[in-house]
């Protein structure tokens, strides 16, 4: 079966600064994979390359077999993304935000409404569809962003630090929702975080540090292999400078 995401030899630079260095990994179809790394590890740059916001200069990214650089339309049609920075129009209502996204995906208005109802209902937000997004709290706004990302029924969901700024209860709730989507729909999920408490022990994880992949596997195995007491120590190890003076 074609991988949901396949990344080969991906490097990226901002001027002299190396942001990603020879990154290669894949996400199997229907699998969930977390990118764990401290701030500045290159997670957001990787997502920007995946979504075509940054041009790919070195390496190759394919989404369900479609190369992002060669066939961006086909690759983008297969993915839904929630960015770290909120992207909802606060002055528009929930349904207007979703309708705008649906139109940008080329969906007909009737199809948008049917899908919007389904996705907003899942979060219990359909009754609030006509309220301006500005009135929602941070947790609900994130839910709307996820509902919007799933509106066009993508096969791959990208979540870039999607739980940033949420309280613990909202974070747990969101995590559970994502896991149920993976199980029920066979959705593939690639998500980034710098919060180890969000990861389950059996979570498949890629450790990213200074733009390079350090290790890959189940979180518990990585903790054991690194000789650390727990996942928090593992992240602290990643956050430490590579060289001491």
């Amino acid at each position: 079966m074609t991988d949901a995401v396949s990344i080969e030899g991906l490097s990226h630079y901002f001027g002299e600064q190396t942001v990603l260095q020879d990154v290669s990994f894949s996400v199997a179809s229907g699998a969930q994979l977390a990118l764990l790394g401290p701030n500045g590890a290159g997670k957001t740059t990787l997502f920007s390359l995946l979504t075509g916001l940054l041009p790919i200069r070195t390496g190759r990214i394919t989404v369900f077999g479609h190369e992002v650089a060669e066939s961006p339309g086909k690759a983008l049609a297969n993915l839904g993304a929630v960015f770290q920075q909120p992207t909802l129009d606060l002055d528009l209502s929930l349904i207007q935000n979703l309708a705008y996204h649906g139109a940008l995906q080329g969906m007909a208005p009737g199809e948008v409404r049917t899908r919007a109802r389904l996705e907003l209902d899942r979060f219990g937000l359909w009754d609030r569809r006509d309220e301006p997004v500005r009135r929602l709290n941070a947790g609900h706004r994130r839910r709307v962003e996820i509902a919007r990302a799933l509106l066009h029924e993508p096969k791959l969901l990208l979540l870039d630090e999607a739980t940033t700024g949420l309280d613990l209860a909202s974070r747990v709730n969101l995590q559970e929702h994502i896991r149920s989507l993976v199980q029920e729909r066979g959705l593939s999920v690639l998500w980034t975080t710098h919060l180890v408490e969000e990861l389950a022990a059996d979570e498949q994880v890629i450790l990213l540090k200074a733009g390079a992949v350090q290790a890959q596997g189940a979180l518990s195995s990585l903790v054991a292999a690194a000789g650390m007491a727990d996942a928090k120590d593992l992240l602290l190890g990643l956050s430490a400078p590579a060289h001491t003076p």
Partner: protein
Amino acid sequence: MRPSRYFHCFIGVLRREFQRTVQQRSRFISALVRPMLWLAVFAAGFRTVLDGVTVPPHTAPVDYEVYIAPGLVGIIVLFNSMQSSLSMVYDREMGSMRVLLTSPLPRSWLLISKLLSSAMVSLAQAYVFLLLARLFGVVPPALGYLAALPAILLGAMLLGALGLFLASRIDQLENFAGVMNFVVFPLFFLSSALYPLATMQAASEWVYWACMVNPFTHVVELIRHALWLDFNAPALTVTATAAIVLMATAIASFDPARRMFSGRAGRH
């Protein structure tokens, strides 16, 4: 990708442009107050400017209000185009432009949809102004309103493309206001919006030539002639050519990464 998807995309962008305009009522009203003040106050004071002068396409001398009305339509379109570009810079800084740019449809189509949608808003504002202008004696023939529609739309596309080009070159929101002052006012004052070209030429040869190379002059002339049911081929040629060149340049130079990644992307 099916053609209907392109259509749905355009309608979605258009709807959002109008939703924003409706929500920001003050923006819509201020866009009308400015030209109405010019018409009510400025034009009243300058009534004698055209004393006895016949300006094409008119065949007899007209009131100054009648003369400047097309120029004021032009300024409505110009300000709305810049406002729309400003919102693009804002969207880019706030992150909401990512939604637009991660659409599977070609980026060129997304930008053309944005330009055309902004032009439609300009068109609505221009027609509200033209209706109000009737109170000040600006009464073109009924068919003139229809004939002016493509002229205003083409002018709005030209000016929108200029705004899009500026938006793609400007790094920060706060810089945009400064650029507007350096672009909007010279475009407006060095044109035939306020005074006839012949008057400009009589006053200063270089000002006349500055007006002639200014595409805004030709937008205003195209609207003026269309509104009074006259066809101005040179104005159409210049406006259409400038619109195509500016649209192609704006689309080609649009760099989504610019300023979206903490200012780093510009150097990648």
